[in-house]
């Protein structure tokens, strides 16, 4: 299967991409779980300082692809990735690449909020501590406060930084996780259905937050909700059964989809 010819990149020269630097270049990526071929010959260019949304029906491979961008798939037994994914021109599947450093640059927010069973402060300070980013205690405090502010959580928790992070509400926990990711100062933030475990109000706060920080990061968000994709993203990629069907400007995608399958999905024929 690997030998089959490389497909053309599925982008349709989106306007947004043309206007920005390309951050991630994936070409002919295949992901296997044991015998299952989860991602098939995928090629995509993702721009910096914009939000790209991955949509598609369940099991289409959008989360799998997301997890291969910071090599979280390494932790799954029997998972194999071929092809190359370049971040700033460097193939992250190169033998000499250091996963630990890659992940410090490519942050991730998970479907279910997963704060560590530590205090709010320690949750955010975890990354700077292990990477030795903070030079001093005051430095560290500054990083924590700034990250919490960027995640627009600071006002709500400033009086109880020493309380456990698990005691927050679901939406606050997710924003804490975003603050935790921001604290390491990543360039790319991957979000795997960050709102699926939250109520609509909490989801709206997260969406606002994504909108606020998108100027500084390359954000990729996997979502089930087409409305959410339409609201927060500038680019949208549609996945179906392991294939990248279509990738383009969000506005174009939802008004004039090029592929029949995209149209069917958007109009609710399946999904």
């Amino acid at each position: 299967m690997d030998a089959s010819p490389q497909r053309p990149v599925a982008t349709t020269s989106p306007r947004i991409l043309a206007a920005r630097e390309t951050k991630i270049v994936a070409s002919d990526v295949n992901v296997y779980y044991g015998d299952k071929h989860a991602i098939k010959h995928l090629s995509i260019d993702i721009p910096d300082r914009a939000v790209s949304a991955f949509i598609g029906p369940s099991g289409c491979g959008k989360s799998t692809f997301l997890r291969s961008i910071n090599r979280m798939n390494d932790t799954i037994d029997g998972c194999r990735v071929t092809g190359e994914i370049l971040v700033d021109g460097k193939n992250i599947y190169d033998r000499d690449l250091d996963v630990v450093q890659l992940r410090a640059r490519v942050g991730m927010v998970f479907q279910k909020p997963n704060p560590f069973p530590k205090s709010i402060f320690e949750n955010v300070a975890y990354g700077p501590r292990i990477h030795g980013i903070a030079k001093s205690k005051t430095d560290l405090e500054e990083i924590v406060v700034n990250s919490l502010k960027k995640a627009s959580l600071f006002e709500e928790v400033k009086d109880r930084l020493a309380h456990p992070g698990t005691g927050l509400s679901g939406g606050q926990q997710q924003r804490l996780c975003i603050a935790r990711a921001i604290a390491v100062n990543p360039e790319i933030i991957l979000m795997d259905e960050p709102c699926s475990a939250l109520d609509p109000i909490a989801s709206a706060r997260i969406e606002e937050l994504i909108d606020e920080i998108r100027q500084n990061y390359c954000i990729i968000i996997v979502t089930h909700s087409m409305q959410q994709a339409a609201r927060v993203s500038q680019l949208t990629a549609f996945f179906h059964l392991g294939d990248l069907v279509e990738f383009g400007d969000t506005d174009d995608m939802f008004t004039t989809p090029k592929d029949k399958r995209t149209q069917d999905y958007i109009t609710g024929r399946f999904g």
Partner: protein
Amino acid sequence: MTAWTLLIIAALTVTGFFIGRARAQGLRNAGAARLHSLPTYHGLLMASMGFAAACVTTLAVAYVAGPDSMIMPAAAALLGTSAIAASHPLITREFRARNCFEYFVMLVLIACSGVAILTTIGIVFSVLFETLAFFREVSVIEFLFGTHWAPTSTPASFGFIPLLAGTLLITLIAILVAGPLGLLSAIYMAEYSSRSLRGVLKPVLEILAGVPTVVLGFFAALTVAPLIRNSGEAFGLAVASESALAAGLVMGMMIVPLISSLADDIINAVPQSLRDGSYAMGATKSETIKRVVLPAALPGIVSAFMLAISRAIGETMIVVMAAGLAANLSFNPLKAVTTITVQIATLLVGDQEFDSAKTLSAFALGFVLFCFTLVLNFVALRIVQRYREQYD
């Protein structure tokens, strides 16, 4: 007589079943209307009536007249038969034999689950009575705070402190060995080893856990103790032939599988999402384990250590065979010390008169041991339960 009685009970049960079933079948064949319950249930009910009546009678007679009495089989037969006869007319079309039988079964099940409670009550009372008898002869103060233990000499002295010190010393050595080894083993198996390696290592640890303590005691006394003595002499140290160190080391190895299997379960119960969160921050595996997994698993690990301590305190054979009998009040691991369990075992092996303070002191020691381990176990199990609930 016992054999006869058992035979009679069995016979009554079987005949009861067939009589009951036959009558119900007769009813079914005779009339067009359906029976409420299957004939088998009528048979089972009658069998259980006969069985229960005969058993109760047997126990009652055995209590009153002794187990060798001729009355026992006779009375069992008589009352069993009359129970069957009395329940015979009950069998009618509408009779809810299944419900009655199920009620009977439920009573039996409840009684069976009560045996565990009875065991605990039995333990508490059997130990408590003799302990109280002991404290009528020896003052509690002398027992708890005395520093001299010599139950066989005249005058005997029952100071419990040297035994406590010996027990704690050996337990401490055992935990110092088993704690790091067990915990690191568990971490390696849960986080690092491949599935196939784990498939080999787990059974090996289970084998180690299944080695009888009498075998470990033999090994401690005949192999480890001489080894320690010889290497001690090489360094110019005087090591007792029954040193606390030998017993403690082997006991530690005995506890390794206990700690590793408990810790393994607990580490596996830490949700993968926490690990993912840490890896996604760019943490290495050991950083994730040390800073996220272990703190999250801390309550469970603490309780695993408590269960291990309780196991070490209560372990008997290793110390009986490898630790000494002399009650030295010493914290030197190279010297011979004795433990609570060693004293219980040596005081009660062989013939004993039940009213002597010497024999009774073993029960007092047993009481102390029971209280120690009960508290440890109870607290540890509570912590584990809380911990499980947190991540369920």
